[in-house]
């Protein structure tokens, strides 16, 4: 036990500080990826509902393929393809090649995967808004934009929130896979720490506990948000 405390102490030679910094970059990547996923999700959901057959078809291909291929394979594919594509564009425009920032790469890779799931969650929530409410908004002369920001989006949030909360939890856990492409977040830091100290059990338990804290804290926060947006809705159950 004393040994474990020594390994987990904040200052070197303990690894506590390194683990917490790993957690910070995990949260940073997860948050960025989640927001990117939400942007793709909103755009895609609108596209799937209002778009023409070509847009709808390509969005369907995107959501189906992303959801059928293992995240690990996607992360590698997107990581290499994104880097190559960016450099290809830069070179063809006459700029020098760049080395992509690790955090940005993580956000882009996880966000792109999250987007496919977000589209489905948000589309389902859009469709759950009663048509009468939208018609009422149109009838009193709201513009398309006003109708969506004032009626549709607030009305769909209660339907979307459980799914979105789930996606956030998936995002935090999925960042662990970035260890495979050598991105320094909690899982990789822990792995490096075990390589030096050889106390595998203690360190992986500590990392697991940190992830669990994030999940439990997120559950509390999403509970508040959900209660806030459910005001005035009939109580279920």
């Amino acid at each position, binding site marked *: 036990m004393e040994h474990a405390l020594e390994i987990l102490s904040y200052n070197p030679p303990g690894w506590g500080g390194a683990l917490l910094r790993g957690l910070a970059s995990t949260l940073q990547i997860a948050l960025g990826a989640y927001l990117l996923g939400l942007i793709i999700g909103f755009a895609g959901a609108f596209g799937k509902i209002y778009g023409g057959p070509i847009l709808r078809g390509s969005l369907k291909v995107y959501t189906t393929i992303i959801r059928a291929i*293992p995240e690990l*394979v996607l992360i590698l594919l997107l990581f290499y393809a994104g880097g190559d594509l960016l450099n290809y564009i830069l070179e063809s425009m006459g700029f020098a090649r760049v080395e992509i920032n690790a955090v940005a790469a993580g956000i882009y890779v996880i966000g792109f995967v999250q987007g496919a799931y977000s589209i489905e969650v948000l589309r389902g929530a859009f469709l759950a808004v009663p048509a009468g409410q939208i018609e009422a908004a149109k009838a009193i002369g709201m513009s398309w934009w006003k109708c969506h920001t004032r009626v549709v989006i607030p009305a769909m949030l209660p339907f979307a929130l459980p799914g979105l909360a789930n996606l956030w939890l998936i995002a935090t856990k999925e960042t662990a896979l970035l260890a495979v492409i050598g991105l320094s977040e909690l899982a990789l830091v822990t792995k490096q720490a*075990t390589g030096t100290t050889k106390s*595998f059990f203690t360190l*992986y338990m500590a990392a*697991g506990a940190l992830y669990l804290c994030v999940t439990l804290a997120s559950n509390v926060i999403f509970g508040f948000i959900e209660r806030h947006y459910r005001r005035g809705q009939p109580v279920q159950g």
Partner: protein
Amino acid sequence: MEWFPGEWYWIPEYFPKLLDGLWLTIKLLVLSIVIGMSLAIPIGLVQVTGPRPLAWLAKGFCTVIRGTPLLIQLWLIYYGIGSFFPQWGLNETFLWPYLRAGFPYAVFAFSISVAGYVGEVMRGAFRGVPKGELEAARSIGMSPFQILRRVWLPRALQNVFPTLTGEFILTLKATPLASTITVFEVYGIGSQIRQETYLIYEPLLLIALIYLCLAGPLIMMFNYLENKIPKRVS
């Protein structure tokens, strides 16, 4: 394959290995689902009817499993628990080759993961069966075990079948993680090909295609099973 862009000359050479990997993936998936499901049913059940301490234990198990990344669980089980065996002097016994193999650890980790996620699903499923049906079963003199086997479990499974299909697909998509603990399932073979041929995209694309081909029939099989279940049309 000249009509298709990319370098594909390595496929014949690695074909037998890929088949072995595919077989390992399927074994991993089936074992994890079978063991995981048989754990998930009691875990769901005790949360609905079990004594308080057992219910709390089951709830805690589900929370911990669902709240931590599978990769960390896998490493904790393989490297963490595995690191105790040499300390106990087991590395000099005949058991060591078995204790060192990654496959059993992978099956164990994926099974408890399935148990955690599906346990939560089953809790809702058991709770969702109308009380009247259970009372009817009791009133015609079924024993508690008979009620579970003939009424409660079938009705619960029937309600959550689509969710279970989703969970099994997620398990399939999690199996590549096993390659990080020396289990050379199909993704692991793909990584090996990438290292030996210095190709980046082609092996990954083939692996992605293989998973698409695995997920498709799996979904179709479960949809077929789902349609087999008689539904009462009201």
